[in-house]
């Protein structure tokens, strides 16, 4: 299972619509990094509205991809994390402190622009 990555100007947009099993998550990490590399994208919005479970493994994969993208010069914003998912992450002690967040895709793009301008 592969998660489609869309390109919008200098940004990449991903809306995760499948259950994130380990394989899918790892594949996504790889796909996103090579897409950043080939497109030279400076920003990424990862929309998690349809994701109803994030355990510590998936959280690590997603957190890692943010740090990796950062090394490659692309800022990642997470959007649409569901209340239930947010609460379970907090219970797990996972705060994703370094990852900017926004309510939805649109706000995510605004946030991204703001984050990139600050630099």
């Amino acid at each position, binding site marked *: 299972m592969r998660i489609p990555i869309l390109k919008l100007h200098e940004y990449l947009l991903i809306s995760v619509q499948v259950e994130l*099993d*380990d394989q899918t998550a790892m594949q996504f990490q790889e796909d996103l990094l090579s897409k950043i590399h080939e497109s030279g994208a400076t920003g990424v919005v990862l929309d998690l509205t349809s994701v109803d479970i994030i355990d*510590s493994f998936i959280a690590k994969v997603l957190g890692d991809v943010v740090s990796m993208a950062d090394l490659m010069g692309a800022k990642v914003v997470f959007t649409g994390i569901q*209340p239930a998912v947010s*609460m*379970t992450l907090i219970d*797990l*002690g*996972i705060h994703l402190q370094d990852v900017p967040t926004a309510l939805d895709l649109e706000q995510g793009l605004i946030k991204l622009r703001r984050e990139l301008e600050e630099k």
Partner: protein
Amino acid sequence: MKGTLSNVPIAKELDIVGARQTGRNIATELGFSSVDQARIATAISELARNIYLYAKKGEITFQQVEGVAPVGLKIIAKDNGPGIKDISKSMIDGYSTSGGLGAGLPGVKRLMDDFDIMSSDEGTTIHVIKWLR
């Protein structure tokens, strides 16, 4: 409806997804809120992954129980792997022998209401319960 509801063997990576889906369905049927369903499914995911990662294989059992509340969902994660060397350390946030986040066991304890762990060099058994309120 009482006693054992389902039994899910864990032997490969995709079984983790199967186990948490089974758990979520049972939780829904028992009437847990959507937030508690997410808590239960996440706890199962952590326990099943630990089995797969550290013991290679084992199983997750679902039981309906009665106690401090009339309805509770009990989840038993059992394996015959190498066991946990230092149980008290494994319950500390951030402790991992595999480069993971070390959030699994302490997280499961917070996600669920009751938490019991037994481990020796013959394997590990973890009992957790979520009460329906």
